[in-house]
Structures are given as C-alpha cells and as structure tokens.
C-alpha cells in the first residue's frame, strides 16, 4: 500500500474510534490540514462506512447438491392456482405459457416466468421491473397484470391477460387493411405509449412482435405486451438494483435508434417510424 493510502487508512480508523463528533472533526482537521487529497479520501471512506450495512458479516454462501433438481416448468406443471398449458413465447429472460387459472375464477391467462438458470439478482430485478411497469399501466391497449408470485424453487413469475392476437404487421396484412386503417390502428399504439410515458415508463423495446392485435367483439384491439426492458424515469421499478452490463443488449437491434442517448421522444419517434413503415410498406 502506498504512503497516502496507508495514511488514509490509519486516519480513517482512528477517526472511527472517536465517539464524539466534534472531537472527531477536530482530529480530522488536524490530520488533514493542508492535504486536501487526504481529507477527500478519508471523507469518502467515512461515507461508505456509514453505508455499508452488514456487508460480509455473514459467511460465505453454502454449497448445495443439485442432483434430482426438478426439471423446468412445462405443460402440465402447476404453479399456485395456475396450470401451465402450451408455451407461447420466449424472450431473453423469460418464457411465456398459456395457463389455466383454477381459482378464485377459472379463466385462461398468460404466465411469464424467468427461465431456468437466469435467476441471477440482475435478471430477477429486471423481471420484477417488467412486472411492476406493466402493473402501473391502466390502459385498454396495454396488457394488464393480474398476479405475481414465486415458484417453489424460487423463480419469479407473473400472470397477465392472455392476448389472443397476432403481431400488428401480420394482422394488417392478413386483414388487408388500407393505409388509413393501419394508421388508425397505430394510433392506439401511440395512445398506449403515451399512457406509459405519462406514468414515467419507457418501453425501450417496441417492435411489431410486441404489439398484438386481437379481435374483441369484432373490433380489432391493439395490445402492447412485453415490457421486459422497460425503464422507469424518476422512480424505482424494483427495489433491487437494475444495471446494464456491457455484455447485455437492451432492445432488439433492428428497432433501436442509432443513438440511445438522445431524448426519449426522439427515440420513440424512430421506433414508431420503423413500425409504421413495417406496417404500411407491406401493403404497397
């Protein structure tokens, strides 16, 4: 350790042993006089001392046998009141199943669960953020969350309304909608996104496959699903730290704007333009 660090260490530890705040301050002033770098370093360490909680007070993690660990969730698996049926989706971190809810009411729902082996702290935090983002939404064009929980093996899941629809571009093509009709449908998407923005949530991964259209009483209804990479502005979506490692991609490359550092509105406009182009170009 170099001299400066050595000095900082000793001043820090001596300071911590002083009970009285005023005496401590006097000590620090005396030791750090004329040495701003030392003072900063000691203050910095004192700050982290106050924050450190119970770091390392427990001992190392336990070892566990994993022979005979149950296989992953599959059709037929029962999780709480939900019985899994067919798998309908797979994302970077989760699997989506159709599930049959048994109680308190019987109905079909969509159950999204973290993939096996992805239950790291970081992924769980992001998964919970998605659930929370969806739960904050209250809009006819955004899939709603009914329930959330954790399986016996400790993996989080949440339950949403089952959207029996197809991706927006395919829908438009199948129904051979005119450009005007497509844009009207797209208006619902804008309204959904505006609602999300109003709640301080940015979707960050808008693309045709996240926008479904399902008929409700003969009328096509747009539903935005999958807030998997949603980010909250100005509020915490999850009480666990969400951070982005440089090795993980956020968003789907084809639809991300060139510069993610630009304003949200600009970024959304880029995605919107791309989605509208995708919807409309196929009709030309």
């Amino acid at each position: 350790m170099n001299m400066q660090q050595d000095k900082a260490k000793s001043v820090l530890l001596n300071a911590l042993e002083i009970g009285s705040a005023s005496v401590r301050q006097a000590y620090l002033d005396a030791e750090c006089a004329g040495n701003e770098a030392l003072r900063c370093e000691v203050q910095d360490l004192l700050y982290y001392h106050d924050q450190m909680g119970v770091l390392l007070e427990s001992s190392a993690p336990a070892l566990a046998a994993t022979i005979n660990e149950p296989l992953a969730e599959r059709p037929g698996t029962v999780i709480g009141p939900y019985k899994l049926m067919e798998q309908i989706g797979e994302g970077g971190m989760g699997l989506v199943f159709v599930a049959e809810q048994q109680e308190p009411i019987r109905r079909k729902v969509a159950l999204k669960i973290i993939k096996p082996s992805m239950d790291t702290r970081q992924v769980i935090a992001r998964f919970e953020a998605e659930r929370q983002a969806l739960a904050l939404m209250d809009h006819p064009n955004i899939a709603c969350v009914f329930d959330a929980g954790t399986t016996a093996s400790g993996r989080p899941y949440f339950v949403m309304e089952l959207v029996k629809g197809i991706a927006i571009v395919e829908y438009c093509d199948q129904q051979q909608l005119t450009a005007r009709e497509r844009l009207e449908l797209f208006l619902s998407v804008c309204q959904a996104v505006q609602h999300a923005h109003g709640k301080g949530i940015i979707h960050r991964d808008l693309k045709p496959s996240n926008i479904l259209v399902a008929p409700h009483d003969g009328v096509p209804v747009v539903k935005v699903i999958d807030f998997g990479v949603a980010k909250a502005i100005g509020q915490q979506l999850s009480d666990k730290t969400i951070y982005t490692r440089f090795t993980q991609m956020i968003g789907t490359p084809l639809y991300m704007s060139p510069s993610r550092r630009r304003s949200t509105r600009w970024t959304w406009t880029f995605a919107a333009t791309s989605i509208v182009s995708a919807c409309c170009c196929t009709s030309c």
Partner: protein
Amino acid sequence: MSEVTRILSAIDQGDPHATEQLLPLVYDELRRLAAQKLAQEKPGQTLEATALVHEAYLRLVDVSKAQEWDSRGHFFAAAAEAMRRILVDNARRKRRPKHGGDRIRLDLDAAAPIAQTPTDDLVELDEALSQLETTDAVAARLVKLRYFAGLSMPQAAEALGISLRTAERNWTYARIWLHRELSRADEAAAEPDPGP
C-alpha cells in the same frame, strides 16, 4: 501422516517450495470432501462452506503435530483461497445463460458443489477482493480467512500473526473499502439515464 500435514511440517521447517504445493492439494481435498458429503445429503440441502473448511482441517491435519500457529495459518489461508475459487468458479459458470434443454444446473461431475446464493454478489466480491489484494494484502487475507474459511476474529488474528486489535481495525477497513469498490462497480455498470 497425511500429505497435508507433511507439507505443513515442511512449511514450518522453512521449505520455500512447500507453500505452493499446499493450495492445489487443499483445493482437491475440499472438492472431494464436499462431493462426498453432498452425495449423502438429500437434494436441496446445503453445506456451509465454512463448516466444510473446518471439517477438512480436522481430517487432513494431524493436530497433534501441527501445534504452531504457522501451520494452522497456512492451512486456513490455503483452504480459504480454495473455497473462494470453488464458490466463485461455480458462480461464474451459473451466471452464463444456458441455451436449450430443461436441466437447470450443470451436469454434476461427481457432485460438483454449486453455490446457492446470488451469484452476481459473489463474482463482484471476488473481483473487488482481488483489487484489495493488490493494495492491502493483510486486509485481504483477513477477509478471506473470515469469510471463506469462517475463522473467528481471534483465530484469524492468530493465523495472520497480528494482534486482535489490529485484526479488528483491518476488518473494519476491509469492509469499508470493499463496500466502496462494489458500489463503484455497480455505478460503472449502470446505464446512464436518457436525457429529457
């Protein structure tokens, strides 16, 4: 006399090469012991890493011969480092997303032990600890002995050949330093907020 005891004795006698032999041997022994015990446990049951180290000590070291704190110190230092590697290697492996297949964990080769708690924490701690090793060797050694080998403060102080008070001061310092290092790593990894 067990191999480990022989090496500890050689270390005590000042053999410069003996220390290097200790870690790989202790590492293998710990893994073997863990596998053996885990095979006897019901699935899902856990084995405290520190309990394993202590049991290994009792099995591998002829206590009547290894009276000097030097030997104990060397054994536990090696055991702590070995346990650290076992846990961190598994944590790193567990973090990598698996592609395809239903099996949740690694296929077990002779019941390779697998750490159960948040793997991100352990990998980050390991990195921070490596940093600490370069700037304050004593503090780092203390952390390893206490956290991975489960030594009490007095035991760790003795193993390191320092006073109890010095150990306590170093422990406080190490915790502060590591907390800062971990916090900085978290901040560095966090994505910057998009502008208004």
